[in-house]
């Protein structure tokens, strides 16, 4: 393995495609004869469709067909399992019946010759509903529908220890519905080939999962479905599995016998393609007189849909981040008239560490301890929830490194004491924590006579840089320059690769790529000793491969071309399947720390995050540029979560009222603080041969708490309800 290429800040191999407009995303494909679909989405959040008046819409120019619950083909549901890789979160198939469970649910689908014609006709569909009362938010959901317990963890007796402890805090934190809003709206371009195959260009974080789910829904052999996602306009979890629009588009294409394309409008990206659920988190922490945690309870209720149960597992990190003998974690859901929630970047811990790491600061204040010192004191290198040591933990170094980069030693702990002109400065920090997972994966590497190598893997690059790190891994194994590697991803017919999610694509796919590259070299050697090969009659064990050339012990050498060409062979290919994370010896997790500066100008009520120093340990960094970019991007996503983001549902009828990019505020250029990222770069070889643990999500964890802690330091106001909007900081008149 070349040391130079692994860890290098190599510019992305797909950069020129993205920079010139050549990169083709799901809606950039126009199969011959493609028709355009536009949805009709429910204006109510609960009830039944009483009547659909399609007369005017059908007369609209260019309309081919209008699908709805009375004429859409009968389809099956996907079993929605991880084991069979056919997960979906909203299991209901669109147009199953006339029931409406949430606003934005598909009511009809207009297919027309052009996009404009489909849109115009969709606006003319008249729907009469029999509307029923709704549970619009978590409070109403709990009150109306009660709670359903989900997973839990208990060790010791958290309640008894809490009662007996000398120092304690008891606080409830809430987080709103957040919506992924990747720049690329969900899109599907579906074509049924003459031989009955379904070919789909889908904005998907998992082409294998999408293929398997569609195969179940349309009752096809998986080999009869092909899902392509060569470029994806990110997803943040929202595109892990298919949503109703994919099914609707594929179904329409089958019924009409021609390709159909649909892009979900931005408004419905808030309704029918998942979101991060609203949460209420009850934290109870207690310490002894020395500041050691003696009790930690993290009890969460989150909203789910009327159709499916999806718990937001906020306590998943709380059970092992700090040492504590008495711990309780519970999760429960309550059904609301909202679309089905799903994973959103750092699901669970993303908003869970907002609560825990805010509570840690509250606890530190009660016992009069510096927030960093309090966390140090409760550091552990043992995962008590799993009963295993962490494979590699450098959290204390992360504290030191980020604190040093930030200048934490100059912090005046007194509230509101740090000022600059009209501005009050607040400094806060928090820990980051995300599990490192690894899944079975396959890849194929082919050495070619022209001196290049191809890598095939049915994983995806959603923007994290997977194309580039796959190419780097192959380049390292094969000793070839990066520009001689062609990495091919995003096609379900390639060897089975991991989803781009959970921060496990890197840790899962790269070992398969490395092993396949070595297999390709072995294949090349067997070809070389063929009767018509350059080492005919030789022993493959005597051959040594270096940078595209085979040598024997007698000074003879042959290039890949010299092996392949005389035998009329296109390539020397190797396949490899690698396994999941080794079990039973270690708990694999990544750790880090965020230090954040905010400024609060009370005169004009301006709150800004001005400076961030983050130190993150994700094992071996494969590409220094794309890895840093991931952490910076995570900081920006969670800056939005901290200060701006909330999908608001009208409490009277459960209609989302700010479902657009103007009223659902996300960070823009001018909100960007100075972000200083250090990657500690300790390879974790217990997880895989590259020592890489994955980096997509950890930067999202803890950040909102670091902001809230900084806001408290500046203002003395402890905001326990995200987002930290200005009204929560202004003094009452």
């Amino acid at each position, binding site marked *: 393995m070349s040391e130079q290429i692994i860890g290098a*800040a190599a*510019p*992305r191999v*797909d*950069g*020129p*495609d*993205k*920079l*010139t*407009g*050549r990169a*083709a*995303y799901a*809606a*950039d494909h*126009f199969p011959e004869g493609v028709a*355009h679909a536009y949805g009709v989405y429910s204006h109510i959040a609960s009830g039944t469709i009483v009547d659909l008046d399609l007369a005017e819409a059908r007369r*609209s*120019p260019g309309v081919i067909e209008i699908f709805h619950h009375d004429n859409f083909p009968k389809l099956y549901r996907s079993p929605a399992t991880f084991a069979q890789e056919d997960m979906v979160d909203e299991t209901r198939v669109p147009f199953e019946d006339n029931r409406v469970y949430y606003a934005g649910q598909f009511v009809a689908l207009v297919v027309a010759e*052009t*996009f*404009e014609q489909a849109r*115009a006709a969709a606006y003319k569909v008249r729907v009469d509903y029999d509307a029923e009362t709704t549970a619009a938010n978590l409070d109403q959901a709990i009150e109306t529908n009660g709670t359903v317990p989900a997973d839990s963890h208990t060790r010791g007796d958290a309640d008894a220890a809490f009662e007996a402890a000398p120092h304690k805090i008891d606080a409830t934190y809430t987080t709103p519905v957040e919506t992924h*809003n*990747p*720049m*690329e*709206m969900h899109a599907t371009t579906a074509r049924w080939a003459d031989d009955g195959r379904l070919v789909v260009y889908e904005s998907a974080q998992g082409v294998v999962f999408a293929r398997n789910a569609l195969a179940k829904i349309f009752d096809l052999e998986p080999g009869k479905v092909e899902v392509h996602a060569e*470029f*994806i*306009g*990110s997803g*943040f979890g929202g595109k892990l599995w298919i949503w109703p629009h994919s099914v609707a588009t594929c179904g329409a294409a089958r019924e009409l016998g021609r390709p159909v394309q649909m892009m979900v*409008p*931005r408004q419905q990206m808030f309704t029918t393609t998942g979101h991060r659920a609203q949460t209420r988190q009850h934290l109870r922490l207690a310490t002894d007189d020395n500041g050691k945690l003696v009790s930690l309870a993290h009890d969460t209720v989150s909203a789910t849909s009327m159709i499916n149960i999806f718990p937001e597992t906020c306590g998943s990190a709380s059970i092992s981040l700090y040492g504590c003998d008495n711990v309780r974690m519970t999760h429960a859901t309550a059904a609301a008239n909202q679309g089905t929630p799903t994973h959103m970047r750092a699901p669970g811990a993303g908003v869970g560490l907002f609560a825990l790491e805010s509570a840690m600061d509250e606890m530190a204040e009660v016992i009069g301890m510096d927030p960093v010192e309090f966390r140090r004191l409760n550091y552990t290198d043992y995962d008590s929830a799993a009963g295993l040591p962490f494979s590699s933990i450098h959290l204390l170094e992360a504290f030191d490194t980020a604190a040093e980069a930030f200048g934490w030693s100059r912090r005046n702990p007194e509230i509101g004491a740090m000022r600059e002109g009209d501005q009050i400065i607040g400094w806060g920090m928090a820990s980051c924590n995300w599990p490192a997972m690894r899944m079975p994966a396959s890849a194929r590497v082919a050495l070619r006579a022209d001196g290049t190598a191809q890598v095939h893997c049915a994983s995806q690059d*959603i*923007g*994290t840089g997977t194309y580039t790190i796959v190419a780097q891994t192959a380049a390292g194994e094969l000793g070839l320059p990066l520009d001689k590697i062609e990495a091919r991803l995003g096609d379900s017919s390639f060897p089975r690769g991991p989803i781009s999610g959970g921060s496990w694509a890197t840790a899962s796919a790269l070992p398969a790529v490395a092993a396949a590259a070595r297999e390709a070299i072995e294949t090349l050697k067997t070809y070389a000793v063929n009767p018509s090969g350059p080492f005919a009659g030789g022993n493959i064990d005597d051959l040594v491969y270096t940078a595209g050339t085979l040598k024997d012990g007698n000074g003879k050498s042959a290039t890949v071309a010299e092996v392949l060409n005389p035998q009329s062979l296109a390539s020397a290919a190797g396949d490899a399947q690698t396994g999941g994370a080794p079990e039973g010896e270690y708990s694999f997790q990544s750790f880090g720390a965020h230090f954040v500066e905010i400024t609060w100008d009370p005169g004009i009520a301006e709150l800004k995050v001005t400076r961030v120093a983050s130190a993150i340990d994700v094992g071996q960094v494969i590409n220094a*540029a*794309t890895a*840093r*970019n*991931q952490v*910076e*991007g*995570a*900081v*920006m*996503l969670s800056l939005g979560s901290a200060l701006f983001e909330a999908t608001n549902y009208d409490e009277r009828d459960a209609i989302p009222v700010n479902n*657009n*990019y*103007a009223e659902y505020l*996300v*960070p*823009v*250029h*001018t909100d*960007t603080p*100075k972000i200083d990222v250090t990657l500690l770069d300790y390879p974790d070889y217990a997880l895989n041969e590259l020592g890489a643990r994955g980096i997509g999500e950890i930067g999202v964890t803890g950040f909102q708490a670091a902001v809230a802690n900084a806001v408290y330091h500046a203002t003395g106001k402890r905001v326990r309800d995200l987002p930290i909007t200005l009204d929560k900081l202004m003094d009452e008149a």
Partner: protein
Amino acid sequence: MDSTNAPAQMRVSLHINGQLRQLDLPPNVVLLDALRNRLRLTGTKKGCDHGQCGACTVLVNGQAVNSCLALAVMHDGDEITTVEGLAADTQHLHPLQQAFWEHDAYQCGYCTPGQLMSAAELLDNDNVGTRDTDVSEAMSGNICRCGAYQNILSAIQQTRNAR
């Protein structure tokens, strides 16, 4: 959007990336959709269709415009530059494209064409100051949900400073 009183098609001439393209379009075709669906210039992206995200930014007569907010027929005779026409030829990258590549000024790449076109206008716009905060303010109509803002700023500043 009742089409009964509107002419079914209108002739529009667009000078796109230096080429005259004549189209017969219904009057309700938005410039973005004309570029993408009819001319298959799919480098320009649809991110919201409401002028809220900037992904569809193109240059119209040298000015950065959200192409989702204009009807194609309103641009008869206009010079339009899309990301496909940013570089002088297909063998080379424009200095901004090169700088974006070097600075890793993107992740998923979906907002990138819009970021590039807004930045291209900035290069020649002396009304925008030279400080980082000036450029960030001027670029704030282009959302990057991946959050590559710091690298985008570096890439733009490097390109501006080199001129």
